[in-house]
């Protein structure tokens, strides 16, 4: 069983990308578990045909955190999209507190431990577990999939904007910190393009700087934005589109990836200097 975590700056499109990866993996005939690790619990929405599932933490809360009273089908939901693909997709959302309250990080820890406790991964005989983790690794909780060996492969979704690159570099810091404990390594960068000039080149060079590679690019596209509004993936909405093809290629890139590394991280000043130089060259 492969365990993959998708990280990236908030709003960069992690959930969109990861739900397409989950679908494409299932389409290969694999049993995939998609775990949303974000209090706003919208990662699996596209896989559940627009529905927001009941979260692990809400279920735990109702049962006073008595984990022994939680049943698997209360926290894991099978995607109805299974008819259109050969494999299976199971969805779980950690959930968490309302904005501004409590500790979302602790929530993620509890949610993942609940799945472990329920022995979900073994009982469902999964081939892949994919964690879609909240934006920045702001505290220990959000590094949970990296720590303790839950996810062995990390992919960072990034565009070519400086803030996004810096967030990616910060995530690399967390990966390199935990790699000796958990063995988790960076599998590469997923380029989610925002129509910047020479954006692919920026991302390729940025990946090189971190000691990794770009595993695939998703083009900037209006049709991808439609997915969210319609509550479905491109595989249902526009299965023959070039964007859908890009997701398929990205998934193949991840599935066949053999290049894993302990990434470097760069401080903001150095990154900014590097980025400015690159952009200046591009503009010239």
């Amino acid at each position: 069983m492969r365990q993959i975590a998708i990280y990236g700056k908030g709003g960069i499109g992690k959930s969109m990308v990861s739900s397409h990866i989950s679908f494409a993996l299932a389409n290969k005939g694999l049993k995939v578990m998609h775990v949303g690790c974000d209090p706003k619990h919208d990662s699996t929405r596209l896989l559940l045909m627009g529905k927001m599932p009941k979260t692990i933490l809400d279920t735990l809360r109702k049962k006073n955190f008595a984990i022994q009273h939680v049943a698997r089908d209360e926290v894991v939901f099978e995607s109805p999209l299974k008819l259109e693909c050969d494999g299976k997709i199971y969805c779980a959302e950690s959930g968490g507190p309302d904005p501004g309250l409590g500790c979302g990080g602790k929530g993620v820890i509890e949610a993942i431990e609940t799945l472990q406790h329920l022995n979900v991964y073994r009982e469902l005989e999964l081939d892949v577990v994919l964690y879609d983790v909240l934006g920045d690794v702001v505290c220990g909780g959000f590094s949970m999939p990296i720590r303790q060996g839950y996810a062995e492969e990390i992919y960072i979704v990034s565009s070519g904007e400086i803030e996004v690159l810096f967030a990616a570099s910060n995530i690399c810091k967390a990966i390199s910190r935990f790699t000796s404990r958990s063995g988790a390594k960076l599998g590469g960068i997923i380029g989610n393009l925002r129509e910047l000039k020479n954006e692919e080149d920026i991302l390729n060079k940025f990946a090189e700087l971190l000691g990794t590679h770009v595993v695939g690019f998703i083009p900037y596209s209006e049709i991808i934005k439609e997915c969210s509004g319609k509550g479905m993936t491109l595989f249902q909405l526009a299965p023959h589109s070039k964007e859908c093809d890009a997701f398929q290629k990205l998934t193949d890139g991840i599935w066949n990836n053999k290049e894993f590394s302990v990434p470097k991280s760069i401080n903001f000043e150095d990154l900014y200097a590097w980025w400015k130089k690159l952009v200046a060259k591009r503009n010239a």
Partner: protein
Amino acid sequence: MSLKSYEHCCSSLQALATLGKVEGIIPLLHGPQPCAYQCQIGSMTCRPSRLLTAGTLIKKSEVIFGGEENLKKQIINMYRQYQPKIIVIINTCVPQLIGEDIKGVINEVEQEIPELKVTYFDSGFNFPKAMPLGNDVAWVSIVRVLEPMKKVKGSIGLVGRSGQDAGAFTPVDTFLKEAGIPVFGFPAPHLTEMQKISQAEILFPVHVVPFLTCKEISERFNSKVEYIEVPSGIRGTSGFLRGVADILKNQKIHDLVDQEEDNIRPRFQAIKRRFAEDPVKVLIVYGPASEFSLSKILADFGAEVIMVPSMRNKFAQMEKELQKKRYGLTIVEEDFDLLEDLNEMYKPDVIFCEVQGRVEIIPKLMPVFCNMMYLTAYGYDFALDIGENFHNAMKRGVLANWKDMVKRYGGELHA
């Protein structure tokens, strides 16, 4: 890295013990069950007391989803059951970590119950190395909600440390009152009494602990703060009173002190002779800052004193300098692993160790000086009483009985 024992006890415990004994105040421990348990046990070992330990008992669910609603419910519940005038939230580490909006909760509650005052302070890891700071921050939270009263001309305020200091100023304020000075004590056993501290023009701390309290009173009620010294022991009490006399330019206090010194001189000299005949080396390890007062009492009589201070605030620094200069005290600033290590290093005859914060077993039977009345350690009488009974108390039959038991049943002299 070795295990250091300096981080003895949480300031929450001391705050709870402090606030829980004032009429009209209910301390509310906002924290998980282990915090409440530790405070409850701690307050039981502290001294015989029936403290109301009310708490929110934060559970995992509140850590994840937030505990503000629970806190609000508990405040209202406490108010309905006990009708306190003030509820003080002792905000422990966990709600601080998850960023609970305590001020916001207080605002909401005060809108619902205008007659109730709610205040709070952050305890726990904010004050990791000094349990007595729990006193200080607890009083700061109270001062914040006291209403100002009109100043009394020529008046002073004596500011102590814990709730037990309330009413314990008599050995000092008797002289001041006799000299015609209006004196207000803080803390006091009742809120209405405590309120009066706002009337004092000059504040004189009587202990090293209430540095933040004095600062808060001073800023809130525009009073001046003058630290002289802790009025304990013979010279300490005289030094404090004469210091007040000098600042207030009040000769009457000097006269009263002269008179009292004449009265007690024979007893003081006799005690000093006894200590000279039978020298004593005392190791005083932190308690609720009582090491600062007991060190003076015993050093006055000629005991060799090694003191491990529990406080590091400005008043404590001043007091340490004073005691080093006056008595040549040895002050141990370094952390240590075990009390036994200090025992080995200094080889004292007697150890004073306030055990409410941490219980440590010394694998040797040492005469341990337990001063359960430490909170009234001010003034001449207490010092004389300790001095006159010290040697006898240290030779009570406990040691002899213990030795007999060991002899009869075997084993070593382990305490």
